C-alpha cells in the first residue's frame, strides 16, 4: 500500500514536471511569436517610411517633370506646366500611363502643394492609386521648387507622399 502510494506520488511528480515543461514551452512560443509580430509590425512601419521616401526622391527626380535646362538654376526644380500636364495624362490614363508608373510608385498618392502666397496653396495630384485595403502611411514631405516658366516665378513647394503598401 505504502509502495503503491510512493509509486503514485512519483508518477504524479513526473506528470507535473511534464505539464510544467509544456506550460513553459507554450509560454516561450507565445512570447517569441509576440515579439516577432511586434518586430514585424515595427519593420513594416519602417519599410512604409522608406518606401515613401524612395517614391518622394524618385518623383522629385523625374526627368519628365524637371524645369527647362536653360531656366533651372536651383536644385530639384519642377516645371509648373509639366506638373499640370502630367497630372492630366495620369487622370486620363493616356498611353496607359497609370499602369506604366504603377511599377515605380505602386499603391501611393503623390501630390505637390505649391505655396503661391500666404493664403493660397495650389494642389496638384500627380499620382493616386490604391488597389489594396491598406490604410495610408503617415505622409512623407519633400521640399522642392516649382517654377512657372511663363511668369518666370519660382515657388516654394512641398511634395507629399503617402503609401498604401
Amino acid at each position: 500500500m505504502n509502495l503503491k502510494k510512493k509509486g503514485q506520488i512519483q508518477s504524479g511528480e513526473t506528470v507535473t514536471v511534464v505539464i510544467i515543461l509544456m506550460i513553459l514551452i507554450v509560454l516561450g512560443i507565445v512570447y517569441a511569436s509576440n515579439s516577432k509580430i511586434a518586430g514585424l509590425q515595427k519593420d513594416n512601419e519602417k519599410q512604409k517610411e522608406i518606401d515613401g521616401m524612395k517614391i518622394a526622391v524618385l518623383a522629385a527626380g523625374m526627368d519628365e517633370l524637371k524645369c527647362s535646362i536653360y531656366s533651372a538654376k536651383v536644385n530639384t526644380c519642377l516645371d509648373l506646366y509639366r506638373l499640370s500636364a502630367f497630372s492630366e495624362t495620369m487622370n486620363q490614363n493616356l498611353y496607359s500611363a497609370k499602369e506604366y508608373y504603377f511599377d515605380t510608385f505602386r499603391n501611393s498618392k503623390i501630390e505637390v502643394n505649391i505655396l503661391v502666397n500666404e493664403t493660397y496653396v495650389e494642389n496638384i495630384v500627380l499620382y493616386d492609386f490604391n488597389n489594396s485595403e491598406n490604410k495610408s502611411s503617415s505622409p512623407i514631405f519633400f521640399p522642392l521648387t516649382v517654377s512657372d516658366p511663363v511668369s518666370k516665378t519660382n515657388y516654394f513647394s512641398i511634395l507629399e507622399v503617402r503609401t498604401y503598401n
Partner: protein
Amino acid sequence: MRPKKYDAKGQLQISFNWIFVLIAGAVILLFFVTSISKEKDSSQTQLAQKASARLDAVFAVIQQNPNSVQIHDAPNYELDFYCTEEGHYYSLKDSSTKNYLENEHIFAPETVGKAKLISWTKTFSAPFPVSSILYLSDEKNQYVFITADSKIEKLYEDFPDKFSKRNVSLSQDITDEGFRKYIIIVAALPAILDGDVKKKTRSIIVVSSETTSDIYGYGKLKYYEGGSLTSIDKPYVGQELLFAGIVSGNSKLYACGLDKVLEKTRIVAQTNLLRTQKLKNEYDLTYTGRCSTFYGLVTQGYVQNLTVSAGSFETTDSTKNYKKFYESMMDLQRVNENILRSDCTLLY
C-alpha cells in the same frame, strides 16, 4: 506477489520516463532539423535579395548622378540578364529567383559580376528629357572597336575609358585576353575573324549609320551573335540608344530596353503635348501671337509624329519609323531654338 507488482509499477514508470525523453528529444531534434533546412532554403533567397538590394542601391546612387561613370566594388556573385516573353529580368547565376526590371531603363550584357561593375548614366531626350538610361557592365566584358573607319574611331573616343575598351586597326589583331565576352564594334562585317576569340564568346555589332555627317543620327545595329553569319538588325536613334546597343552587346537585351524607353517616350511626349497646349492657351490670352505660332506647330503635328513613330519603331525598311522619329525630334529641336531666340517659354 507484492514484489512482482512493485516491479511492474517501477518498470512502467521507467518506460514512461524513457518514452517522455524520446518524445521530447524527437521534438527538439525535429525543431533543429526544420530550422536548419529552412535556414538553408532562405540563404539562397537572401543572397538573391542582397544582390537585388545592392543593384537597387547602385541604381539609386546612379540616378542622383546623371551623366556620370562610376566603378563599383566587385560582387561575389554573377548576375544574368534575360529578355524573354516573361519580360526583362535578371537573376543570380543558377538561381530561379527572377528580379523583373519593369520600367528601369538598364542596358547590360548577358552576364555581369565577380568583377568590378562599371555604370554609366545618360539622359535620353526626344528631344525633351525622357529618362535616365543606365549602362551597366563589368571589367570582364571587353568592348573592341575596329577603328579603321573614322565613325567607329569617334565611337571609341566617346565611349568612357572606365569600361574595358580596346581599339584595333584590323580584325586579325583581336586576341583572347581572358575576358568573359568580346563585343566587337565595326563599320562593316570583317571578312576574316578567326583569331583566338571563340565564336561563343563574341558578339559583332556592325554600326550602319544612315546619317552621313553624324554617326549619332539614326541607323541600324546589325548583330552577328554566336558566330552566325546572318544579322539581327535593330534600329537606333541618337547617341544614347547607340551606346545602349553597344553596351548590351545582345540584340534581345537591347530590344527589351529599347521597347521600354519608347513606351516612356510616348507618355512623356503626351505630357509635353498637353504642356504645349497649355502654354499656347496662356500666350493666346496674355501675350503676343508670335509664341503661339511656335506652339501651334508643336501641337498640330510634331509631337504626334514623334508619338506615332515611337509606337512602331521596329518596322520594315520601307516604313523606317526610326527615321521619322529622328526627323520629328529634329523638328522639335528647331522649334525650340526659334522659341529661345524669340524669348518665349521653351519646350524643354
